[in-house]
């Protein structure tokens, strides 16, 4: 592990401006930002090696919240501890918050224009297609594994979300509880086998 050969103040500033720039130009999913962060922090600055960045990508994906923010938390912590974390998260969050504030304020006036309404109506069709395409791709991977409990879980969660007004948070926690039970059974079973 080699430490960045820059003064702490300059290093924090570089971290902040890097995240600010990356976050400003990251459209779409969270993995895009991880790719850009790898290019900046591994290839250009040499602050981390590639394996570390891959670990961060995996952890960012499996912890709750936005992948971009989680990746910023982990990268910032890795580069400069808690201060690094705050600086990196701040840089990541400022561009979308500022931009969406402006857009939100213009939205009502904007929405009244007929051409804008037409374009938005067409884009809604596009959004539906994009989301269903993602769902299709992910669902295919689940179906391929032919794990019947996973498939049943998928059907149950869909039914709960689609046909009831249940809070989605409750649904996710229930699924996590099923997974926890499976994990514990596997752990317990393994222990018995060894004896």
């Amino acid at each position, binding site marked *: 592990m080699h430490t960045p050969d820059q003064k702490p103040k300059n290093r924090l500033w570089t971290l902040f401006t890097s995240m600010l720039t990356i976050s400003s130009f990251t*459209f779409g999913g969270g993995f895009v930002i991880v790719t850009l962060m790898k290019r900046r922090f591994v290839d250009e600055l040499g602050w981390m090696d590639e394996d570390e960045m891959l670990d961060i990508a995996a952890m960012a994906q499996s912890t*709750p919240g*936005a992948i971009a923010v989680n990746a910023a938390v982990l990268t910032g912590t890795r580069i400069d501890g808690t201060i690094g974390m705050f600086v990196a998260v701040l840089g990541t969050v400022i561009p979308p918050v500022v931009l969406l504030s402006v857009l939100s304020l213009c939205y009502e006036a904007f929405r009244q224009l007929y051409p804008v309404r*037409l374009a*938005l109506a067409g884009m809604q*069709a596009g959004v539906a297609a994009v989301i269903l395409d*993602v769902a299709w791709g992910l669902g295919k991977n689940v179906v391929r594994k032919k794990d019947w409990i996973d498939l049943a879980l998928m059907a149950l*969660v869909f039914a709960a979300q689609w046909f009831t007004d249940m809070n989605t948070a409750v649904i996710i926690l229930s699924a996590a509880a099923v997974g926890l039970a499976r994990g514990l059974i596997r*752990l317990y079973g393994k222990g018995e086998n060894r004896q």
Partner: protein
Amino acid sequence: MIYWQLFISFFQVGLLSVGGGYAAMPLIQSQVVVQHPWLTLSEFTDLITIAEMTPGPIGINSATFVGIRIGGILGALLASLGFILPGCLIGSLLANLYRRWKDGPVLQGVLGALRPAVVALITAAGLSILQLVAVNQTTGSLDVFRLAIAAGAFCLLRWKKPSPIFTMISCGALYLVVGLIAQAMGCPLM
């Protein structure tokens, strides 16, 4: 009070969305459309469109968009803070646990069960937007043209894998051009 509700709602979204923007979407929908009367489904779909076309995570974009409409700048900041706080706390905590236990059966079990659940939630979110697309916003009748656009875009995405932003802008442009022509001919689409 409204500030607290915004904070808590997006704290829940941040705490329970595992696996990125598409996983956060059904949770946001549940919080801002179903649990609280903050947005209509149509406004929510516009929000997703805007969030997809602008840089930054969907969660932060949504928190800002909803927050500013419900509680002004302070609402936007608190909602965004609520969204990122769980990730910051758990992220720095789990970094260590993950290294030690990532191959353990318990964590694998939990993550393994969350994956199919998240797929189901994303599917439901996509279908609810498709339902919205099927109904014409002005006339209230079946919108065959928009359904056809959605079906075409879906096939294109499956086969050619264009970027989501390109796909959405193309759909919008197509509907805009056809809509303006139709209006000029005296039979507006909506």
